[in-house]
């Protein structure tokens, strides 16, 4: 059977018998064949043995989705589960993160979740990592069979996606070595809506292939905030962006903290004053907090449904008892319950997973700023604060880097220079680093002659 105990006394033998009954529900799926099974599926008791004793699954995020995922996986037989989250528990988590209680506020989410599930489900050996995903290295990620994400940050998703792509290995004929593929199941929710997807890095559409599926971030133009506010949000943004820095209510150097009720109250009152002055209604404390912290509404039910859909896919991946979802499901529970599953397409020139040299076309008289803007704005890149370096005569040269203040000041003027002035040429490589990816990306520049001569006055 699935529990191989060589030196067992009578007590332990009762436990294994007992566990047999306990897992009867999933054993029916794993030990019986069916007409709709995956073609590779061979029913056997060994599959549950694999799920329980060999298959290592990493859950990324121990929030609304993560708590559900941990419970779901443990009840589907997985024991070797790791969970990573850097956050600590807050009161506003408790309406959906069901493994936490008021007494747990301030404690590590990952540790608390693991403790609860290991206690409730005997045999479960979940392990917590209270740290950022970026602080764990290749070796850590490589140990898992499957990774499942319940994150609220697109940047973190992209970073993890980049990590899994960087673990891919290619054969001599440039074909993908499939044993290096770690499947990634990704879930996300926002209010009554959510999505779940299955990514086989290098084989199917990855996070970077489908960046256009994320809605653009809501931003307010500075001139509107400053000169022509219309909405209560504009008044709050004004206080946040302009008035706070001007008045420094808690002394210069104290950054506005959306989690500090005193700070929120101050912004709320100033925003109200501004709204009053302009005859704008509906600045509320809740809205103030929402704008300051960019709060996304969340409810237990949506998280439960999306996490369950993800966990079902993990179970299918681990057992082959069923063909996986192909490959992206959206869920909308605002009007009835609606789901739609479609096959998101792999981008041939994907910056992360295409395994072909990346080429950027720019005009030959373009400035470095043009490259920088393309990296931030082009649908294929959408980077946050790219650092650009190159190699000239065998030596690294930093062209622009905004993340480190001293380097930013030193390299700022380069943005206005033409790329050709800095030693770049047609076919030159630039190396780009960004928070959205764990590894540096090499991009080949293709300089094209400016055709619209008459336009350049």
């Amino acid at each position: 059977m699935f529990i191989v105990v060589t030196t067992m006394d009578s007590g332990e033998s009762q436990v294994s018998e007992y566990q047999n009954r306990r897992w009867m529900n999933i054993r029916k799926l794993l030990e019986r064949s069916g007409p709709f099974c995956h073609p590779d599926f061979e029913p056997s008791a060994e599959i549950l043995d694999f799920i329980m004793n060999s298959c290592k699954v990493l859950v990324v995020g121990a929030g609304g989705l993560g708590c559900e995922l941990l419970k779901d996986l443990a009840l589907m037989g997985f024991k070797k589960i790791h969970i990573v989250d850097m956050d600590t528990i807050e009161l506003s988590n408790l309406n959906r993160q069901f493994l936490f209680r008021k007494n747990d506020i301030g404690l590590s989410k990952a540790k608390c979740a693991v403790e609860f599930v290991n206690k409730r489900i005997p045999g479960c050996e979940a392990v917590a990592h209270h740290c950022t995903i970026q602080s764990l290295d290749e070796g850590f990620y490589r140990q898992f069979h499957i990774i499942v994400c319940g994150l609220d940050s697109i940047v973190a998703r992209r970073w993890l996606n980049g990590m899994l792509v960087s673990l891919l290995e290619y054969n001599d004929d440039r074909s993908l070595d499939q044993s290096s593929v770690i499947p990634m199941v990704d879930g996300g929710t926002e209010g009554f809506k959510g999505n779940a997807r299955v990514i086989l890095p290098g084989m199917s559409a990855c996070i970077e292939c489908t960046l256009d599926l994320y809605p653009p971030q809501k931003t307010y133009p500075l001139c509107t905030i400053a000169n022509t506010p219309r909405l209560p949000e504009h008044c709050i943004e004004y206080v946040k962006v302009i008035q706070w820095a001007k008045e420094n209510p808690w002394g210069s150097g104290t950054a506005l903290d959306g989690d500090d009720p005193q700070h929120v109250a101050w912004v709320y009152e100033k925003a109200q004053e501004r709204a009053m002055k302009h005859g704008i209604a509906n600045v509320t404390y809740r809205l103030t907090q929402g704008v300051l912290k960019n709060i996304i509404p969340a409810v237990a039910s949506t998280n439960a449904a999306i996490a369950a859909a993800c966990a079902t896919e993990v179970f299918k991946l681990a057992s082959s008892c069923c063909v996986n979802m192909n490959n992206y499901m959206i869920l909308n529970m605002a009007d009835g319950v609606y789901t739609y599953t479609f096959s998101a397409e792999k981008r041939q020139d994907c910056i992360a997973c295409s395994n072909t040299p990346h080429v950027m076309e720019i005009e030959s008289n373009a400035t470095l700023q043009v490259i920088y803007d393309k990296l931030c704005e082009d649908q294929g890149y959408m980077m946050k604060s790219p650092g650009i370096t190159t190699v000239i005569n065998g030596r690294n040269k930093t062209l622009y880097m905004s993340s480190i203040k001293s380097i930013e000041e030193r390299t700022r003027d380069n943005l206005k220079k033409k790329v050709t002035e800095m030693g770049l040429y047609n076919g030159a490589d630039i190396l780009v680093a960004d928070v959205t990816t764990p590894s540096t990306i090499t991009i080949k520049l293709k300089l094209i002659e400016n055709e619209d001569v008459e336009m350049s006055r």
Partner: protein
Amino acid sequence: MASPSPKSPEQSEKNKQYDRQLRLWGDHGQATLENGHVCLINATALGTETLKSMVLPGVGAITIVDDNNVSDEDIGSNFFLEITSKGLNRGSEALRLILELNPAVQGHAVQEPPDQILQENPDFFKSFNVVIATALNEKTILSLSQHLWDINVPFMLCRSVGFLGSLRIQMKEHTVIEIHPDNDQPDLRLDVPFPALVEYLDGVDLESAELKDHAHIPWIVFLYKAVQKWQTSYQNMWPMSRKEKNDIRNILHEFMKIDNCGVPIYQENIEEAMKAVNTALVPTFLPSRIQELIYSSAATNLTKESSSFWIMCSALRGFVEAEGKGRLPVKGTIPDLTASTDHYVKLMNIYRSQAAMDAEIMYRKVQQIVTQLHCDSISEAEVKLFCAHAHDLCVIKGSNIATEYQLGSNVASYIARHLEEPDVMMVHYVMLRAAEMFISEHCQSPGDWEPEADIAKLKTCVTKFLSDISCSPFPKDDHIHEMCRYGGAEIHTVSAFLGGCIGHEAIKIITKQYKPVNNTLIYDGASTNTAIFTF
């Protein structure tokens, strides 16, 4: 330096705890939820996962009816049972562990079979806002659903078998004021402007405005002026056709300021006006759905028992026929648009005041009706909310589960039509019904012990069901085989998905916000597919 001390009181503990959901259904929705009392029959994994999604957001109270004792299989699939629960009453154990999630929720466990309660104390069910049942047999489904239909208590019948699951909602009638539509249509009345709006629109002079001011005039004004200009050639007409709308676009183009070289200067507000030509010029009308509502018998034959919704519908009919001149009360909101603060605030207040006036008239009409009927009063806030959403009112008329189970001609042809399509999700429905028949006949789930041997027996049930709806047997046995493979197993993640959906729909039913499923949801976890059927 002394710290500033803002005077605003901090949010209450409860507001903080529920913050993320209050942004969805508001304080009033939360208050309704906290007064809600839900009954769960059978604390299966599906049952407890459903309750979890209601207890966390703070439903008022839960009652679990379950006379089963906890088995090993229960512990293997249900998170709200623990190893030490084995052999104890399942409802009480589940209740204990679920209530840990939220101390604000009240809970009760009743260790009696539902059939016994139906016989001895049928009034038991009257106090619930919704009754949710899992793992019921056919006989109990029929008697319980009929009883709940008769006493008008919403009923949610749920199943989870293998990769399949279903939810059937039975309600006589469900009314929703706030459906929270994804894209809210503006209600601008440019074709029938009310006096305050006319005064404002006529007061804006496009010609004399300097570029800076010109670029900060709301597109609504431009569009209105464009139509006025167009109407100098087409008296008493309104631009409807594609050509006429293009005329309007051309006029809008002429409104653009010109730079020194004679090139029109790009203006965001005029660009917005161009985009709005298709939507904002749709003449104001009474949507036929709303017309049906206000002239339906529930709104025209009010009684003392009529709900506030129907009383307000009746008042709305009065408004439409008199002051509204065939139109609904003004919504009172405008979309965000490029404008100076002054213009935007002025324009918004004009719409807002008109909405307040309309709501005031509505409130008086409602009060009149309430006085005539001697029924419970309706607050002004309630009437205001109703008016603001009068364009989106929603009524769902439900059907009886007993009728569905009798497979009358309408139900039969509905199922047959989907089977012919062929719609595999309807095949799943048939399989779930056939498995239920199997259990009635054989007292165990198909494939529970002998998957191969049960295929023939289950096939008999399927064939019987299909012949009852005048359909020929399925050409292949694959779905029958698959159901026998499941052997009645409850798979946790399938129940967790459905539990999330069912808890969610129950919250919609209690809060009367958002449209619930009408009336059947089928889920197939194997293909990651859902379908909605309306029996």
